[in-house]
């Protein structure tokens, strides 16, 4: 569960949410909370249920069973109240290509009853750096600009909750950095849920990750702790000057070492029991046998590996 200091109920409460289309189960008993000001990332392969979850939260479609509440309102029964508090960037950016950027954002602001529309539109155009394109037809904009207009649209009424489905898709690296900075700057005041299948995005922008696969949440934690949690074993990397075929067998004789595998150029990957640090023993052996110790360190799994591991393990069950 989240280790974020809270005052009051979570902004988003999802309980036992399920969604099925005919025989196909898109979401299966999903529960999670999001606290005010958090940035939560949904991570999962395509078709995992990220978009379905977001569509339920935004009131686009109701769940088949279970409940979801946003700012205390039920997403189905008080849908309009929920929608007032949500800014949503769908996967397909909903743009009217025959409108200018300004007219479009003004239209979105009117739909959501923004009091001072000119100021609001100018504010979000500045936030997303599209100010110089105010009078350009959206149909004439590049993919990157369109994506930013979509984000501006989601922000124009300063929503309590911001839900973004793949917000950085189609952007160039510089724009991705800008958008990630923008999303990070929203933390605290806004509660943000974003989905992605790009791993660095999660570790760079999110305070918490929900990994979704096959309609289920398979892991939920901070990006750092998720890495530690998934490590069923400690991994140690050893590099020696004198590579020899019998080294793995020798290493496995050390108590607590589960396995040792030779990689390229005298590098060995050693797996040990969780919570036991065998580096001293390994160093002693390397020195004693005269292998010529060059490097010895613990390896932490990258989120990529965590993700792969979680989703493939889930599939194997």
């Amino acid at each position, binding site marked *: 569960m989240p280790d974020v200091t809270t005052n009051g109920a979570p902004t988003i409460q999802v309980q036992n949410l399920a969604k099925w289309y005919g025989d196909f189960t898109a979401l299966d008993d999903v529960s999670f909370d999001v606290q005010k000001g958090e940035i939560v990332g949904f991570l999962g392969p395509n078709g995992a249920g990220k978009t379905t979850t977001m569509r339920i939260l935004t009131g686009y479609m*109701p769940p088949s069973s279970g409940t979801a509440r946003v700012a205390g309102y039920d997403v189905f029964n008080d849908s309009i109240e929920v929608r007032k508090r949500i800014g949503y960037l769908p996967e397909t950016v909903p743009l009217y290509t025959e409108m200018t950027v300004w007219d479009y954002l003004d239209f979105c602001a009117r739909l959501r009853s923004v009091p001072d529309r000119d100021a609001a539109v100018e504010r979000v155009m500045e936030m997303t750096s599209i100010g110089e394109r105010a009078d350009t037809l959206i149909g004439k904009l590049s993919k990157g600009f369109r994506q930013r207009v979509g984000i501006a649209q989601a922000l124009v009424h300063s929503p309590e909750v911001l839900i973004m489905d793949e917000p950085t898709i189609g952007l160039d690296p510089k724009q991705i950095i800008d958008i990630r900075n923008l999303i990070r700057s929203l933390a605290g005041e806004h509660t943000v849920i974003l989905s992605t299948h790009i791993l660095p995005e999660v570790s760079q922008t999110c305070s918490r990750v929900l990994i979704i696969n096959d309609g289920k949440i398979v892991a939920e934690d901070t990006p750092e702790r998720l890495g530690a949690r998934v490590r069923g074993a400690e991994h140690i990397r050893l590099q020696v000057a004198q590579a020899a075929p019998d080294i793995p067998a020798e290493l496995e004789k050390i108590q607590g070492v589960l396995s040792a595998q030779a990689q390229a150029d005298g590098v060995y990957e050693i797996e040990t029991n969780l919570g036991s640090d065998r580096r001293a023993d390994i160093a002693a052996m390397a020195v004693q046998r005269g292998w010529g110790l060059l490097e010895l360190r613990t390896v932490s799994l990258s989120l990529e590996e965590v993700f792969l591991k979680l989703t493939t393990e889930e599939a194997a069950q």
Partner: protein
Amino acid sequence: MKNLWTITQREVKAYFVSPIAYVVSAAVLVMMSVLFVAILLQTRDSSLRPLFSNMFFLFVIFAPALTMKQLAEEQRMGTIELLLTSPVHDWQVVLGKFLGSFILFVVMWLVPTLFYVLILQVFGSPDYGSILSAYLGFLLIGAACLALGMFASSLTQNQAIAFIVGAVGLLLMWIADVAVAIVGPGAVSDALTYLALPRHFNDFFQGMIDTTNLVYALSVVVIFLFLATQVLQSRRWR
């Protein structure tokens, strides 16, 4: 209500930046003018009745042309997701868009015919009572056809299909009473006779305002807009 008007305004503006409004309006005006002149030269009658009662094929073709993109294009482009996750009810989206096409219909289609009235006034002495009644019929027939077109547009993401479904639907409503010959007399044929569009509107064109005809026209509008809303909401249980 403010949101509904916001949607209506956007629809009207969208019409004027796309060629469809101009193409449809130009086509309608050309066809109507040819009809008007031909009928006037033959009948020498300063009335709009023969013109309006001969215009049915214009509605069959051009009403669905105005509405075909309304919901189909939104569904294709994904913009429907913006509207349906905004603090707006589904029926407001449908009604707002319907009003948009209705306003366009009035401005680009009905208003120019006032020029015919002017011509009748200059060269003859028209009966303004029956002309007003004919215009009421014109408004109602337009609303009914546009509502059916909206429903057709809600069914698909493809504008061409929306157009054909709308046009065929209107044709069937136009000739519903022809089917009486197939089913023979009875309750079904009574229903079909009632459903047929032209007989309800000919009364208006002849200067008669009958409440049954008013109720008929308004029910057609309400039913098809309701059905279009139901189709949008079907995402909830699909």
